[in-house]
């Protein structure tokens, strides 16, 4: 007999992550991920960026904190990178991660 364990099954959310410019070259874009309930913005992006160490290092410092110039948007609204650890992801969120360019 198969047993189902509904109580402990972790709920999964669909979240779309868009990287821009240099971040996109290294990590791809329009990435749809299954995110665990309760995950925060920094954890979500860290997990995705971990697949490419160069991409990870462009976005995060050695403590795993967003580099201060990285622009984060959630559903079109700016999130200060220092607020990312407290920003809980919700089902259907669209996150944009963008590096400003500086040349002229």
């Amino acid at each position: 007999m198969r047993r189902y364990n509904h109580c402990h099954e972790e709920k999964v959310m669909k979240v779309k992550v868009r990287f821009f410019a240099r971040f996109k070259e290294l990590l791809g874009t329009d990435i749809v991920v299954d995110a665990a309930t309760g995950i925060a913005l920094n954890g979500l992006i860290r997990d995705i960026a971990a697949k490419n160490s160069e991409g990870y290092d462009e976005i995060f410092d050695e403590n795993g904190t967003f580099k201060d110039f990285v622009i984060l948007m959630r559903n079109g609204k700016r999130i200060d990178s220092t607020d990312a650890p407290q920003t809980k992801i919700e089902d259907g969120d669209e996150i944009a991660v963008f590096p400003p360019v500086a040349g002229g």
Partner: protein
Amino acid sequence: MISKRERERYKRQMALFGEEGQERLKRSHIAIAGAGGLGSPVAIYLAVAGIGTLTIVDNDMVEVSNLNRQILHSDRDIGKRKTASAEGKLRDLNPDISVRVIDTTIDATNAASLIGSADGIVDALDNFPTRYVLNDVAIMKNVPLFHGAVRGFYGQASTIIPYTSACLRCIFPKAPPKETVPVVGATAGFIGMVQATEVIKFLTNRGELLTNRLLIWDGMQARAEEIAIKRNPRCESCGDTTTAMRKK
């Protein structure tokens, strides 16, 4: 007054904004900070559009490695001051406008006087620390700042109307790290065209400006996208506290 010769010269654009619009361009003064990759196409198009006075500030000499993108300068200009090269080209393109060139490095001590009484500032710089200085001057003088920046096949642009839209520091509170950026001339051309178009729209009071929006150009994918941006009430440069303090 628009002369007969000017009427002929600008005929095709006066069809869009009339003699009144052309008069406005003629009476206007725009400062362009930088005569490099962005400054070149911006200066060329603003000159031929008939902006009455252009001030161009740059402190570099033309080098051979500039020539893939800095289309104001030619092979024969290598070793010349960029300001001298720019002045000659722009006068050739349009002798009916006035071109002022200033050969210096912009910093916090001289920026306000370099910009003088310009009606708007074009950010054609290659670094963020000086961009923040220009941003502060634009806020202090209450004139628009037309931002642009490029890297490789990517670019970004936004128009800043002080106290009305997000300023450069609201959008980018921290500067990205300094680097020698790779860039293809066509990318600088694309972003420079966005900036020049914004200047003309602002001066002729036409269309919808690129305010509270950051345009992001991805040349590799041939996609332009935009990110909505908002003024930060706590912004160091234009936030409510800073503004209140300035007004005292």
